[in-house]
């Protein structure tokens, strides 16, 4: 059977499964809709968090990025996993004890201020929205390449599926589809990785194959030594050595970690478990499930890079396998025979180099490059879709709760009934899906770039406000508001300046302290902290009942399911 037939089968099967789950898990109350009735077992919540977290970028782009960045790609690996340590130790248990529905709920109640709540609503929507557009685009790309439908049709199919289970089931529907999506995506990521590790090193565990010797057919010697040697020979940077400055890597890693801990769609997952102990436990499960993919990705990156160089360099163009021409038609592989010798020269020197490979295709094309069976290739498409849709659904829920719960119920229309609130939440998710779909089909050029910066914005706005709210009893509304505004404006301003106002300066010499826009969120976090602490010193202490709330969330004790208010 061809790859396309297999892809149709896998995609149809998985989509059928998601719809089945949606029908089974209809939401009846706002508590069901916002936090799945706080009845999700920690293991299931761990899987759902992992799927929620691992987006199209983790699944499709990350291994490819690392494969071209070598050791510099480390900041993605450490940044996107190390943030869970912060989340587990500093946020998840306390927010669960607090027992509300959303992140703006916490900010608004802890800082006893409608202004703080509205700022939090704005940040949550801004962060989630830039993030969700990337997911829709990712889903569209997979549809168009594997099923050969055009991107518009692809995005509409993706939207229809997300719409169906998100609107019907809310958080309850999303949680259980995410559990299924985690299983699909991890299976789809691991199967090709195990195959390739077996093929190249004879070891079925990719994490170990990464540091093992290649088989005779691949020329023997340690994989990483071989890769370093090949890279140097062709003029590329040595794979296991870094090119970026140490302080930039430091700042980017920290920004990704703080951002991970401040992303609202990840934080609200911890509101769905029954109690504080389960919140801690599910953070542990989540990181294990994420680590399975994140420790495999660097291995896949090294395998793919070695395989690619081996296959294409100095090879006859006419003798290239089928996948090469297939990807050429999408313009993601471009061959330009500059010296007309009919062979492919793949080197670092742009004058001589004849091959350009888009880094996004490394994961998608890897099974084909390694000559794996068609069903494995098709599986990767289903996995990439699961990754994109699960993250999109989690983000859309944040947008809908921010509108229906925080904006309408808690700020402007406090008298609406639970039934009306639920209806508004469904309408909000419907509108959000439409807007996200529209942007997915007509992506403004900057959206794809902005996705990476959502982390910096989350790091500079939410992370310090929440941590101070828990660990600094005397932090007041004036401090928190000043901090969030200063952090957000500083970070957004820095990014906008280098990406749109003055892109010519966007290099190590132009940056402040040599920190790239990707890493500026760390400095934004510091700005937020300084403003919060300084302003709080010179303004009145929070009221006694707020200080009591803070004392209470610090202590263990029974928490009930959040009650609709």
């Amino acid at each position: 059977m061809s790859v396309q037939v297999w892809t149709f089968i896998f995609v149809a099967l998985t989509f059928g499964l998601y719809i089945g789950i949606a029908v089974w898990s209809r939401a009846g109350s706002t508590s069901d809709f916002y936090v799945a009735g706080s009845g999700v077992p920690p293991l299931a919540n761990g899987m759902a968090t992992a799927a929620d977290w691992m987006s199209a970028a983790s699944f499709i782009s990350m291994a490819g990025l690392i494969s071209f960045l070598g050791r510099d790609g480390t900041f993605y690996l450490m940044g996107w996993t190390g943030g869970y340590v912060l989340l587990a130790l500093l946020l998840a248990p306390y927010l669960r004890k607090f027992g509300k529905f959303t992140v703006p709920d916490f900010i608004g109640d802890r800082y006893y201020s409608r202004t703080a709540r509205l700022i939090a609503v704005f940040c949550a929507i801004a962060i989630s929205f830039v993030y969700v557009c990337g997911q829709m685009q990712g889903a569209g790309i997979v549809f168009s390449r594997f099923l050969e439908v055009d991107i518009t049709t692809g995005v509409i199919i993706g939207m229809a599926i997300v719409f169906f289970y998100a609107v019907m089931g809310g958080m309850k529907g999303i949680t259980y589809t995410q559990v299924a999506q985690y299983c699909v995506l991890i299976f789809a990521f691991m199967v090709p990785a195990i195959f390739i590790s077996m093929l190249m090193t004879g070891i079925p565990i990719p994490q170990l194959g990464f540091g093992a010797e290649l088989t005779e057919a691949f020329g023997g010697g340690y994989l990483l030594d071989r890769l370093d040697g090949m890279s140097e020979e062709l003029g590329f940077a040595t794979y296991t050595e870094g090119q970026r400055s140490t302080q930039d890597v430091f700042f980017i890693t920290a920004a990704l970690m703080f951002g991970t801990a401040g992303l609202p769609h990840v934080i609200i997952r911890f509101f769905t478990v029954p109690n504080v102990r389960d919140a801690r436990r599910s953070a542990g499960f989540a990181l294990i499930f994420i680590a399975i993919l994140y420790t495999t990705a660097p291995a896949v990156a090294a395998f793919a890079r070695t395989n690619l160089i081996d296959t294409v360099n100095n090879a006859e163009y006419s003798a290239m396998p089928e996948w090469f021409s297939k990807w050429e038609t999408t313009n993601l592989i471009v061959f330009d025979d500059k010296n007309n010798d009919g062979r492919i020269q793949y080197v670092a020197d742009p004058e001589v180099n004849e091959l350009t490979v888009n880094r996004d295709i490394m994961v998608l094309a890897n099974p084909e490059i390694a000559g794996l069976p068609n069903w494995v290739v098709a599986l990767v498409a289903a996995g990439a879709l699961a990754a994109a849709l699960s993250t999109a659904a989690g983000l859309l829920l944040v947008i809908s709760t921010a509108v229906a719960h925080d904006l309408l119920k808690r700020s402007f229309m406090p008298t609406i009934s639970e039934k009306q609130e639920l209806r508004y939440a469904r309408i909000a998710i419907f509108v959000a899906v439409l807007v996200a779909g529209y942007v997915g089909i007509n992506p403004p050029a900057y959206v794809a770039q902005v996705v990476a910066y959502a982390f910096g914005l989350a790091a500079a706005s939410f992370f310090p406000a929440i941590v101070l709210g828990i660990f600094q009893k005397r932090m007041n509304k004036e401090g928190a508001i000043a901090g969030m505004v200063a952090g957000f404006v500083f970070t957004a301003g820095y990014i906008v300046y280098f990406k749109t106002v003055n892109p010519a300066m966007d290099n190590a010499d132009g940056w402040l302290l040599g920190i790239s826009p990707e890493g500026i969120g760390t400095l934004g976090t510091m700005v937020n902290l300084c403003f919060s602490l300084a302003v709080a010193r010179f303004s009145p202490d929070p009221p006694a009942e707020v200080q009591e709330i803070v004392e209470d969330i610090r202590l263990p004790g029974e928490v009930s399911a959040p009650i609709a208010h």
Partner: protein
Amino acid sequence: MSNKNAYAYWKSNIRIVLSLLCVWFFISFVCGILLVDVLDNIRIGGFKLGFWIAQQGSILVFVVLIYVYIYLMDKLDDEYQSRKQQEASSDSQEEQA
């Protein structure tokens, strides 16, 4: 009555969190970024140590850190609850007397 107990609980909690965060910082930022080139001089099988910590080892340490945290906090929670119960029962005895 349980103010002292609550204060002790929070203090131990902060100590646990801070010591785990020190390990977190050391493995990722110190070993994985600042000292990575120095550690690269040590080789284990096909890996340079610094490179391995940066791309794999740190993630494994993160998982272990969260599980150590879960274990320590569960223990601390239990101690807090039993002390609270003890206090409650001694209080009620005093009332009876």
